[in-house]
């Protein structure tokens, strides 16, 4: 079977439609992950021991099990208890919870990497807890986190094809339906690969830039 540019041209609009959903799912998923990660991190670091332990276990559990099965769980099991979600919403929640557990680790490491002396100095200069966080701790903790968080953003983007398994019409699913209805697999499947490769090569350059921009904070 030969590569057919005409077929590529015909199917491109459908694939672009899918790409939009892929990007939308990534954007929404990353917002959910950022928020859920923060909740997990705060619970693990400040909640009373029993709650902190339960949270730690939940994080370990979510990280140790496949995203695909978690998506199935959200999409197929929750309707049994009366929560019926549209596929895209279920997918975004699944992505958000899964990558939220990774983000939680990044937050925790970032906050713990702020030297003890900074906390003590804040106390010595009589800053309130709120002032300490906003003016001393977070400005030092957040910049080193940014490259790591961006790394997980790229990882999440690459995992979005899994949403096709719960019927979200994203890039992979569009490609599959084109392939199945035309019995041509080479072009759609290769194009999906090329799309993802291009996007992630661009994001790798972006990531290098972020690293160069934000990882020098400690050297000052």
């Amino acid at each position: 079977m030969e590569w057919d540019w005409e077929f590529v041209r015909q199917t491109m609009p459908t694939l672009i439609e899918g790409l939009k959903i892929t990007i939308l799912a990534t954007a929404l998923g990353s917002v959910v992950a950022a928020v859920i990660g923060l909740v997990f991190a705060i619970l693990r670091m400040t909640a009373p021991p029993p709650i902190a332990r339960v949270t730690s276990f939940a994080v370990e559990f979510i990280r140790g099990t496949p995203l695909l099965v978690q998506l199935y769980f959200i999409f197929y099991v929750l309707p049994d208890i009366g929560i019926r979600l549209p596929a895209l919403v279920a997918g975004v929640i699944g992505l958000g919870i899964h990558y939220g557990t990774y983000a939680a680790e990044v937050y925790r490491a970032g906050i713990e990497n702020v030297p003890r002396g900074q906390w003590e100095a804040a106390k010595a200069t009589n800053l309130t807890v709120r002032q300490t966080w906003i003016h001393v701790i977070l400005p030092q903790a957040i910049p080193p986190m940014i490259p790591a968080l961006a790394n997980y953003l790229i990882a999440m983007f690459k995992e979005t094809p899994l949403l096709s398994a719960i019927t979200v019409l994203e890039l992979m699913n569009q490609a599959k339906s084109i392939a199945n209805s035309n019995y041509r697999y080479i072009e759609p499947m290769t194009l999906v690969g090329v799309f993802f490769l291009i996007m992630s090569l661009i994001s790798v350059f972006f990531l290098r830039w972020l690293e160069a921009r934000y990882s020098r904070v400690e050297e000052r």
Partner: protein
Amino acid sequence: MIDWSGYIGLILQGAWVTVQLTLMGSALAVVVAFAAGLGRLSRFMAVRALATTYIEFFRGTSIFVQLFWVYFVLPFAGITLTPLQAGVLALGLNVGAYGAEVVRGAVKAIGREQREACIALNLTRFQAMRHIVLPQALPLMLPTFGNNAIELLKGTAVVSLISLSDMTFQAQVVRAQTGSTLIPFATILLLYFVMAWLISFGMRWLERRVSRGLDGVRV
């Protein structure tokens, strides 16, 4: 009341397929990781370029896309693989690319003075790598390899989408036959978690094993 014993058997069959995939995929990944990781440190430009291309390509797309590509596009090039072969190949190559970066990082982390000592002792490059560098680099690689193995285990769920009857696939079968959703999915989530736990437990044991005798070597 549904008779669960038959369905549990089905899921356990799937679990066995998942275990096989994980073991074979990891074996391929380790081989590929060392080949590509050391390839990136090669003296020869061509080898370095080849290894870099491989790593960037497989890290740039997800396991899902690669698996579908291997399963659906390769047949047109005359290579037809069974789902199991396709699964092992895609998983091994994908995780191998991540592993290659780990190998490279660990080898580069071994101090210059070790290499200089090798040159002073007139060891060949192969001898230096085999007897001096790798034994010290291996303990540095293992924790990340453990994480990669867990990633690979999680990746195996994707093969259910190319109709390989792994644990996730069997859970879908049970769901279709019984209409019950909670029990099959909760069961396999638990089984995946136990497997992930076993991997990290085994890796910790291996770490203690290979770092034996290295106390005091590193500062």
